């Protein structure tokens, strides 16, 4: 993360300092060798505190993903989605501890125990044992593991209401341990993308690509293989709306994610002594706000209604879009990026439903996949050169854009490709999809043996839904009780 984030200002960086220290002395499990009672030691402590608190906030995003997804699904699949959300970070944590971290940061030499690896893949730090039993390495792992868990959980939403739990649990470990980690190595672990000979090499500050595009594009591969939910598409190929069961959960989940994003982006400096954190926080806020405002007004102008579920997607789209560039851009650019993200998510969802004809119940592909790619390109456009030596088109520099394009193309091919292979393998082994009967009854009964709200009287919605003919939309907005 470090090396690739601001190599040009490495001299002023606290991590390099640590680096020198840790390499010289192997693991320091107690911290007593790393901490000294002076400015240097205190600087390390301050940055530990900052990074760990940020990691905790990112951890909490898991709750946000769980809420957001559950709210967008039908009652009968709620337990299942919560179970997937919960288990993926649990399994992911163990997988990343055992394998993923070593593949991703081995050879980066960022901290003790991470000595061995190449520009393609790392191979040291397994199980955080040996020299990796070190306070600095652990601090770093803690921040990285919560990112890894985020990438995995994105797919749960896209595949919801039909993917077998068992397939999901296998998938989850493999994505975290391998697919995410290897690509992550190329960008943040000192791998080849970060050292491309264009601009300063590809830059993805907090992971529009590494986290979001990976999650979103693996999702796309998955739902292509999985097929749509029963009832999503009509015989003529037009999609049906399948409304979620709890709008409150959607909004609350978005609030939690937004909150966590303040750990995700500003925390990615790994250092409070890098005062750019304030600019990063402001850019994060503005892009999320701009994404929401755009979708809110755009849908209002078209339908005279405010579509708050879609507006929440707009906010998240803005946040995903600004994740890569947040450190390199001025505030006006954050607003512009957020507005464009809002457009991408709206038309991305339409494109998926009407053109690709894939079924993504929560909009994960558009929010994380397409906007993840957009975020990578936005670095090449809006970086203003005030930070990390990254300069984009707006200051007349084209080299960085080349690096970003290569990165975007790479992640698209890698995530979609490996995702496709993985899900194809699962399809032909454990199987991807629950039985038709189970899907109709709901995965809660089938996979878990209980329902989310057993005391509430529930009514199936799906049977009541009639999609509007595109030309009949104009009339008939009348609420109950108005003559039509």
């Amino acid at each position: 993360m470090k090396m690739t984030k601001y190599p040009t200002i490495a001299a002023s960086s606290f991590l390099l300092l640590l680096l020198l220290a840790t390499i010289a002395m192997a693991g320091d499990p107690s911290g007593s060798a790393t901490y000294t009672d002076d400015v240097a030691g205190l600087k390390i402590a301050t940055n530990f505190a900052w990074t760990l608190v940020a990691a905790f906030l990112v951890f909490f995003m898991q709750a946000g993903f769980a809420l957001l997804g559950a709210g967008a699904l039908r009652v009968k699949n709620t337990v299942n989605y919560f179970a997937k959300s919960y288990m993926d970070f649990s399994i992911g944590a163990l997988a990343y501890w055992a394998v993923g971290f070593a593949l991703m940061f081995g050879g980066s030499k960022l901290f003790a125990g991470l000595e061995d690896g190449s520009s393609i893949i790392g191979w040291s730090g397994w199980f955080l044992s040996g020299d990796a039993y070190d306070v600095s390495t652990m601090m770093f792992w803690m921040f990285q593991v919560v990112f890894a868990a985020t990438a995995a959980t994105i797919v749960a939403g896209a595949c919801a209401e039909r993917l077998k739990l068992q397939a999901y649990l296998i998938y989850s470990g493999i994505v975290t341990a391998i697919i995410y980690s290897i690509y992550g190595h190329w960008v943040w672990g000192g791998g080849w993308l970060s050292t491309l000979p264009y601009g300063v090499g590809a830059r993805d500050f907090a992971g529009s690509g590494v986290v979001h595009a990976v999650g979103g594009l693996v999702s796309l591969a998955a739902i292509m293989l999985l097929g749509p939910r029963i009832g999503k598409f009509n015989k003529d190929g037009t999609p049906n709306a399948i409304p979620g069961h709890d709008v409150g959960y959607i909004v609350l989940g978005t609030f939690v994610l937004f909150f966590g994003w303040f750990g995700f982006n500003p925390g990615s400096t790994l250092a409070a002594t890098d005062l750019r954190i304030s600019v990063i926080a402001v850019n994060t806020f503005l892009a999320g706000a701009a994404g929401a405002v755009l979708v809110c007004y755009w849908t209002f102008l078209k339908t005279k209604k405010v579509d708050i579920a879609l507006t929440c997607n707009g906010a998240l789209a803005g946040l995903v879009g600004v994740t890569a560039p947040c450190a390199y851009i001025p505030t006006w650019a954050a607003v512009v990026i957020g507005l464009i993200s809002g457009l991408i998510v709206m038309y991305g969802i339409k494109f998926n439903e009407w053109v690709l004809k894939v079924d993504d119940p929560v909009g994960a592909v558009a929010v994380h996949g397409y906007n993840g790619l957009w975020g990578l390109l936005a670095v090449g456009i809006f970086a203003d050169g005030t930070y990390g030596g990254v300069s984009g088109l707006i200051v007349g520099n084209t080299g960085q854009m080349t690096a970003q394009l290569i990165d975007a193309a790479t992640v698209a091919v890698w995530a979609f490709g490996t995702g496709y292979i993985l899900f194809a393998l699962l399809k032909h082994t454990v199987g991807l999809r629950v039985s038709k009967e189970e899907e109709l009854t709901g995965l809660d009964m089938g996979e878990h043996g209980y329902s989310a709200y057993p005391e509430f009287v529930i009514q199936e919605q799906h049977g009541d839904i009639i999609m509007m003919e595109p030309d009949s939309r104009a009339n008939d907005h009348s609420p109950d009780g108005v003559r039509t």
Partner: protein
Amino acid sequence: MKMIQAIIRPSKVEEVKNVLDQAGYVSLTSIEVKGRGRQKGITQIWRGEEYKVDMLPKVKVEIVVPDEKENEAIELIRKAAYTGNIGDGKIFVLPVEKTIRIRTGETDGKAL
């Protein structure tokens, strides 16, 4: 005795109940139902897609009355539930053969 089943708008339940109350028909039972009639359903929106729900929420009010009160009760309900727009609902009258009050065991007329 008759069971009058009136399927009405949720927003009219209070009025219907009040009217019945004032006329001395205190006892009744209500049930949340969904219904489809001449009213075509309403347009809803989900993530940018418009669609129509053809089953609308209604409330079914059930009231059992002695035969001679049937028409009066129907009239009261009809007036209170009326708006003049499609979706006002319907009233069905079913025969009831026996009524028993659980607490006392009284039957029929006395049980109402």
